């Protein structure tokens, strides 16, 4: 294996340039004042105090968390049954069903989101169908549209993660549970579900992160006035040109995400082994 060690250098170089350096730059920008020149920096916490003292930003953060959490919960509620059905399908159908789930991801996410704009707009297909029942309503530029867009885009990640953990599970465990007197529901609740939790947890990570930081889905489906934290960061960098404040918000969001990942990891460890129960 030793001779392959050298092959990691290009990768190390790549991540240093593309990940570590930009992270340091974000860190540096976040703690310095707007308008530095090459030689001088003014260290400051101003960017952070500005964010936390402005109720508008706090509300945007709350809204983003709310949308991300709702999206994640919906992905679990819709994705789990789908994954369960796929995992228990016949081998032939399984391949087809997985293809069905992954197929849309082959098309650019932006294109698919534009397509939803067409479907959801006031005289779009959906509203036309609803109007047949006299139910015409505003769909585009609502929370509903944003959440729909997010669930639609991110649910394959949830389904595939749960599906993997379900298929990895030893089927003889279910026979054992049934042998010990558990009926179908008890088998699911006591064996299948707890053992699929690692898949659910990694699914949450894969859905919550992009849902939290997405900016074009709220922009396109939420309309111009709909602002989530991703949009604020985007506008600070691209429109306002305030890289320092933009970096500070990015950092805040990164910390929130890290905390939530830490919590989910903790739950995962507790559930995947018997240890959690020994503690109390």
């Amino acid at each position: 294996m030793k001779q392959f060690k050298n092959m990691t250098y290009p990768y190390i170089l790549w991540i240093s340039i593309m990940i570590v350096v930009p992270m340091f730059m974000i860190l540096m920008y976040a703690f310095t004042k707007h308008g530095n020149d090459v030689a001088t920096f003014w260290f400051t916490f101003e960017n952070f105090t500005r964010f936390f003292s402005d109720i508008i930003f706090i509300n945007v953060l709350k809204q983003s968390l709310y949308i991300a959490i709702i999206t994640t919960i919906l992905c679990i509620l819709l994705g789990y049954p789908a994954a369960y059905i796929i995992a228990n399908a016949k081998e032939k159908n399984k391949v087809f069903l997985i293809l069905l789930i992954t197929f849309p991801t082959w098309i650019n996410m932006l294109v698919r989101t534009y397509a939803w704009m067409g479907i959801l707009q006031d005289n779009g297909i959906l509203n036309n169908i609803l109007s047949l029942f006299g139910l015409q309503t505003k769909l585009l530029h609502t929370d509903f549209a944003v959440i729909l867009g997010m669930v639609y885009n991110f649910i394959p990640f949830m389904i595939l993660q749960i599906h993997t953990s379900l298929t990895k599970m030893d089927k003889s465990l279910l026979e054992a549970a049934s042998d010990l007197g558990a009926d179908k529901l008890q088998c699911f609740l006591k064996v299948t579900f707890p053992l699929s939790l690692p898949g659910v947890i990694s699914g949450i990570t894969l859905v919550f992160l992009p849902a939290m930081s997405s900016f074009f889905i709220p922009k396109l489906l939420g309309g111009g006035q709909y602002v989530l934290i991703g949009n604020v960061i985007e506008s600070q960098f691209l429109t306002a040109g305030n890289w320092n404040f933009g970096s500070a918000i990015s950092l805040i969001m990164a910390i929130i995400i890290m905390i939530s990942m830490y919590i989910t990891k903790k739950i995962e460890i507790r559930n995947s082994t018997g240890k959690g129960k020994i503690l109390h």
Partner: protein
Amino acid sequence: MKKLIQFKNIVKDFDGQLVLKGINLDIYENEFVTLLGPSGCGKTTLLRILGGFLNQTEGQVIFDNTEISHVPPYKREINTVFQKYALFPHMNVYDNIAFGLKIKKEPKDIIEQKVQRMLKLVNLEDYAKRNVTELSGGQQQRIAIARALVNEPMVLLLDEPLGALDLKLRKEMQHELKKIQQEVGITFIYVTHDQEEALTMSDKIVVMKDGEIQQIGSPTDIYNEPINEFVAKFIGESNIIDGVMLDDYRVMFEDKIFDCVDFGFDKNEKIDVVIRPEDLDIVPRKDGKLKGIVRSVLFKGVHYETIIETKVGTSITVQMKVSDEKPVINTEANEKMSANDFYLDVSDIEELTEATIVARADAQAWNPDTEEWISIQKISYDIKPENGTYPVTFSTAAGTSVTVNMIVKDENRVINKEYQEKIFAVNFFKTADEIKESIALETDLKTWANASAWSLDEDTPVEITSIHYDFDPENITVGTYNVTFATEGHEYMVDTTDKYEVGDEVGLMFQPQDIHIMKKG
């Protein structure tokens, strides 16, 4: 004792493949029953039908006087110890064992008591809070047993539960399982392919093969009175010899008549004679009921497994003619070439190909400096399907050529009516160097002589087990030598405590009660 389980004509069909062909079996209370058989015999399928994980295609399963074919597994008073234990990895030892009781919603304090008692039974009292994935194979095994037994089932099913353990642990667990079974006093149904395991633990052994029961009986019955050749071979080592039952208590085999204790066969009925290796004694040649030569000796720890041959198999002797022919040298093209004369059988000529001719003549051409092989471009020969000598010429592209003779004969086979075997081999030519350079001489001799043997009734190949030659391969010189090929003769396996040397001439001794007679087929 009371009948607890009755299998009535159980048939199982997996996509047109019959796995169980009508099993009828009664199992009583408090019995330790072993289903024994090679893999694919249907033993696990039968167990899974009883556990409720499979439905039989036909037949009935009666449990405690009730038909249970349509009762789901979770409602059966049967628990299973699975092959790979199937412990729940997300629960600790305590929760694994308590699983069944919690499902039944027993009070907490009762669960606590029962689990503790089970942990004591399997000698793992201090392991309640351990994570099951941290336990060794043997410990996981005990937990699996405890998890099943805590539910106080009427029957415990064990599906090759010791398969994953090492030999020492397996022996320990065999004793422990037997002890547990006697202590809890319920029926154990144990599936295994290990005859020793079955003999050690069982009250009753059910030997299965190809979805059918071969024999049901106690370990001693099955060992001492196997009903057919399959059972005899499967349960321990045994010598099986063709024989004829002349009369009650009189059997003939190896052309000799012996007294035995068996009776009730037809006059002159063809039968199989079984003699266990431990029932045979080696005695001086003159005192033996049978006489033979020691063919091989293997040390097995407590005894030597000695093979005695009483009669040689079908054999054929051919001549090996060793010449000192030198390769043809073509200095112009810098090539060397060699080939030898060879014998052919008349029947070979029809299917004769150039590749065969090259192989039999061992024709090769090479560059003497680089040792690289050069391909033979042209082979010219003319052959008729009758005895005679025909020249064949091999040549390379550069013009180097060698001519050798193909000698066609038709007396190259020996037919043995008694064994219904045919053996075939031809004389051959070699150079001394080729014999000295051979790394696997016996295999090479077989190839050179084109030796092969068949069974006449079944038209299947028979292995040539012995090859004898009257030369010293290290110091061979020009001349003609004999090579004898033979199939396996009558051989007896004998367990001895004394060590005999290969080639010793000895006698075999046995008592009338050591002879067991089985019906043919």
